């Protein structure tokens, strides 16, 4: 194993400046990214009057007014009773998990075949697969809508799952192919000699790519969960998801800030633990096979 000792050399002025600048930058960045979340959380717990009470300009002592409120859950209750967010939450969960499961199931089989077989045009096929991901969704949304409408998939959960799968599947194929490439072919050959057929051999090596598969199930869920375009256009009507439903809280005559903030929290909260989970998995997955053992 290589030495872990840190070697330090004489540092120039730039390095010294950086040393001081980086904590400042990080602090700024932290506030920048966490403050909106914090405001969202606090605002979702305030009634409308409290939410819009701000101190006079220049009155820094008046900042406490932000925290001077009695917490209320009325917005959350209203979301689920008046606006039917229970259904939307359910739609979001089904659509994102469904598309993730489909994408990873088919993606792993496709990635395995692409990893193990050699044929003419393989590179072109691979490029074509990823190119479907490169095109902006806006470019294809109109024809896709026409197709989905003609087969009565608009506004249905299966339709939305299918729509999410269009962008999740190519991604899963590409990333999982990398994981399969890292598994020595000899292991499957041994499995075949042991008396397994090709598909059983594939199943035998699945545990070896489990970290990768786990990571991509989560990533696909995140992508689908956060999607707005497909959700508003393909899912509109019968299969509204959380982001699309939140958007509808903005009405021309009335913007219901309290509910919007609460909806934001409802949408964000389930994804935070998943994000933390994927970080662990991805690191394990992406470095798998990086060093020859």
């Amino acid at each position, binding site marked *: 194993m290589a030495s872990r000792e840190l070697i330090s050399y004489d540092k120039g002025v730039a390095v010294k400046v950086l040393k001081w600048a980086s904590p400042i930058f990080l602090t700024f960045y932290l506030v920048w990214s966490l403050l909106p979340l914090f405001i969202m959380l606090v605002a979702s717990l305030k009634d409308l009057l409290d939410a819009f009470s701000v101190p006079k300009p220049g009155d820094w002592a008046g900042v406490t007014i932000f925290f001077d409120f009695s917490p209320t859950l009325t917005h959350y209750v209203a979301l689920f009773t008046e606006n039917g967010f229970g259904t939307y939450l359910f739609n979001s969960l089904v659509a994102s998990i469904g598309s993730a499961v489909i994408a990873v199931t088919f993606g792993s089989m496709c990635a395995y075949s692409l990893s193990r077989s050699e044929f003419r045009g393989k590179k072109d096929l691979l490029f074509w697969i990823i190119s479907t991901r490169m095109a902006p969704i806006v470019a294809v949304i109109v024809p896709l809508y026409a197709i989905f409408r003609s087969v009565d998939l608009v506004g249905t959960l299966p339709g939305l799952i299918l729509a999410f799968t269009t962008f999740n599947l190519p991604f899963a194929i590409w990333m999982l192919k990398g994981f399969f490439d890292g598994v020595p072919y*000899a292991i499957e*050959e*041994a*499995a*075949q*000699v*042991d*008396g397994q*057929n090709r598909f059983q051999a594939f199943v035998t090596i699945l545990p*070896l790519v489990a970290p990768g598969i786990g990571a991509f199930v989560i990533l696909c869920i995140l992508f689908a969960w956060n999607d707005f375009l497909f959700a508003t256009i393909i899912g509109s009507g019968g299969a509204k998801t959380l982001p699309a439903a939140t958007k509808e809280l903005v009405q021309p005559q009335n913007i219901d800030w309290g509910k919007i903030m609460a909806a934001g929290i409802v949408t964000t909260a389930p994804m935070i633990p998943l994000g933390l989970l994927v970080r662990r998995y991805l690191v394990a997955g992406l470095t798998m096979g990086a060093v020859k053992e």
Partner: protein
Amino acid sequence: MVAVSFNNVWKDYGGGAIAVKDLNMEIKDGEFVSLLGPSGCGKSTSLRMLAGLEHISSGEIVFGDKVVNDLPPKDRDIAMVFENYALYPHKTIFDNIANPLKQSKVAAAEIERRVTEAAKLLEIDQLLERRPQELSGGQKQRTAIGRAIVRQPQVFLFDEPIAHLDAKLRARMRGELKHLQFTLGVTTIYVTHDQLEALTMADRIAVMNDGVLQQFGTPQEVYDNPANSWVATFVGEPQMSLMEMQVTSLEGETALAFGSYTIEVDPKNSARLRAAGKKDLLVGVRPDKATVSLDESLGSIRGEVYSRQLLGADVLVEVEIGKSRVRAKANTSFAGTVGTPCYLNFGSEDLYFFDAKDGQVIPQ
């Protein structure tokens, strides 16, 4: 247990890469055959075709009286040990060894009994709960062998199974594998690039080069009567030296011209050379049949020491004579160093004769 034969087997990877050319070989039931050759000679490809891991371009492979060309590996009833062991990293040693039995739906109690038995035989019975990454190279290799022997297959296929072990362990495993094969009596095909492994273990050796079977015979035959100059130099350590000589005559007798020297030939070999009627020869001599000395003697050939390598009990001296280099074993007291003039001696009855054009042996 079954006889195995290759009938006119070709393997063409396309683009001019032909790995195996017209291979014909009959392996008897219960025989231990070694496929020997340098890397890229087609020996592993031949083995993989036997296993069903590669398609056969043309010809047929027969197990007993059944053509297996189109049978997938799982239906061939073979067991294979891979060069890199190919263990299942996520399974315990027990499950690794038990896998073939599980596939053929053997009862759990029977699996337990047979795995334990195989593990005892290979002395890995205390490791059954571990996983492959916790094992040393030798233990991994035993596990791979255990996976092969736990089921009584028709044919054992070994693809350089001990190539990655250290020298000491390799020597021990050679003996153990040979013993195992003898006890089980299963037809075995063993691929190796190490001629010592082939010589020590195999009943018969198939020497391959460049996709072509060069010679198929017992180790003694291959060593004593190599079919051509390539086999002669590949088998045997230290390597046989080859010298370019011409057939000539000396006072009416057949003799060999080597540079400015004329070498007398014993009656048996001179009859042989006369019968063949070739002029340009490659003449081989094994290092232990040649002697080197600092003093001139009758019939000795003058050269210079090119290198000197200690082998332990003796030294290997490479002698440069014109454009040939001849290796000879000498006593450790041999005082010559690089550049020292020296004298080489060998008897004509110890020489090997090959046609200089195609390298084929001059018939006896």
